[in-house]
């Protein structure tokens, strides 16, 4: 269940390559310590285009905001959860949360990382509720 995912570009390539090994990367700036997502060619914290590196995310996250989509879009089977997920590293990702009851999910709920394989060997990071 997902739309076609475009080919990476020169900036996002390493992020997508890591997904083949089921590793979630976050861009981090060696000059100012800022972390950011999605990957960019410069740091939005300090403007540097020479100090960006990758750190591996722990996979721990919480729900920042969420919605259950009930209208059918091509390629998707509602109902499903679209959420802003805040990683332990501080950045927000848009993702899906795969939950037994999507309607019970709420802001602050703890999540762990999971993966949805793509046909070309890459994978989409998705999330599931942590066991309480």
């Amino acid at each position, binding site marked *: *269940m*997902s*739309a*076609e*995912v*475009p080919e*990476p*570009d020169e900036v*996002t390539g390493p992020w*997508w390559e890591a997904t083949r090994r089921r590793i979630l990367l976050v861009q981090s700036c060696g000059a100012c310590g800022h972390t950011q*997502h*999605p*990957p*960019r060619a410069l740091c939005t914290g300090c403007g540097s285009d020479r100090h960006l590196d990758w750190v591996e995310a722990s996979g721990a996250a919480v729900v*920042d*905001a*969420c*919605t*259950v*989509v*009930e*209208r059918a*879009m*091509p*390629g*998707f089977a509602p109902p*499903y959860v*679209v*959420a*802003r997920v805040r990683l332990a590293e501080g*950045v*927000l*990702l*848009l*993702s*899906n949360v795969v939950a037994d009851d999507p*309607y019970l999910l*709420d*802001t602050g709920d703890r999540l762990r990382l999971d993966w949805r394989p793509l046909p070309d060997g890459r994978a*989409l990071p*998705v999330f599931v509720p942590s066991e309480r």
Partner: protein
Amino acid sequence: MSTGVAIVGAAESDLGVTGRSILGLQAQAVSRAVEDAGLTLADVDGLATTGVSRFSTTQVADYLGLRPSWTDSTFAGGSAFEMYVARAAQAIEAGQCSTVVISYASNQRSARSRSLAGVVETHTPEAQFETPYGPLYPISYYAMAAQQYLHRYGGSREALAEVAVAAREWALLNPAAFRHGAGPLTAADVLAAPMVSTPLTTADCCLVTDGGGAVVLTSLDRARDLPKPPVRVLGYGECTTNTSMTAVDDLTVTGAVESGRAAFARAGLVPADVDVAEVYDSFTVTVVLTLEALGFCGRGEALDWIAGGRIRPGGDFPLDTSGGGLSYCHPGQYGVLLLVEAVRQLRGECGARQVPGAEVALAHGTGGILSTHATVLLGVDR
């Protein structure tokens, strides 16, 4: 403070389900607005529009037979038109042009051109990092903002529905409104409507209609010689914040904070000076977030503040008096029609829905996914 520029003409094109083309509706809106101003097309030397084609303003200028000395096609979704007012005022004051038409039209309902997924451009970061998760665009973003707002402040969907209920009350007073004949709407109706992206139902979402509008601006000096009373541009401000659904750290605080602060400062006014407010209501939650950001009430207070009929006809804060995007007309980029209604209110032309003695109006546009925010303050010429 204030500016030396006024709006002198305002008009709608045909609205609703028109069966007309985009350029046909544009031509209607422009010619009606220019006529309303007591001018002719030959007087127009500045043009701002969007949503027509890749060369939007060039296209409309060609269609109208104009060779403008100033144009603007800034694409900023529904807020573009409030931004055009600022740029037009600056261009007129700088002498680059003397008479500007700001216009827009869409036939999206007749043409069935609206998609739940929005328009995805595959070279953008959103196409790689957001679209694969299936958010409805723009609805799911506003839905997440509503979810987080209700979670944080403990509000209810019923309280949020008041925005749509009040909009319908206004639409019942506006013969041009798409829902004019639809009868009243209750909060229970809003909650019972088909769910789209929780917590927003179809009744929390703006209409999908054809429609368009245009306004004409010129110098205040020239405006005073024209047939209708000038509507002064008192202030303006804008703020652009995001295309990504994850760029803004706090979903409940929008760029209307900055756009409103700038507009009020330029006008030398405060929120309490506003007699009538035309606030972009793409979704019920858009209004709640915008009212707080503009300073009409404190953070987390908007649902209590709008309860009890304050924003309905006869209330002490007349809001979206045309019936808004929720019940009047929403042709994709609705911001030009906020200006048209604000002008008509200040001229006293609104019949059954007229706000008595309105002297200061606010028009606030919001585009994209709470992406672009532009505030315009308008006032009668005293």
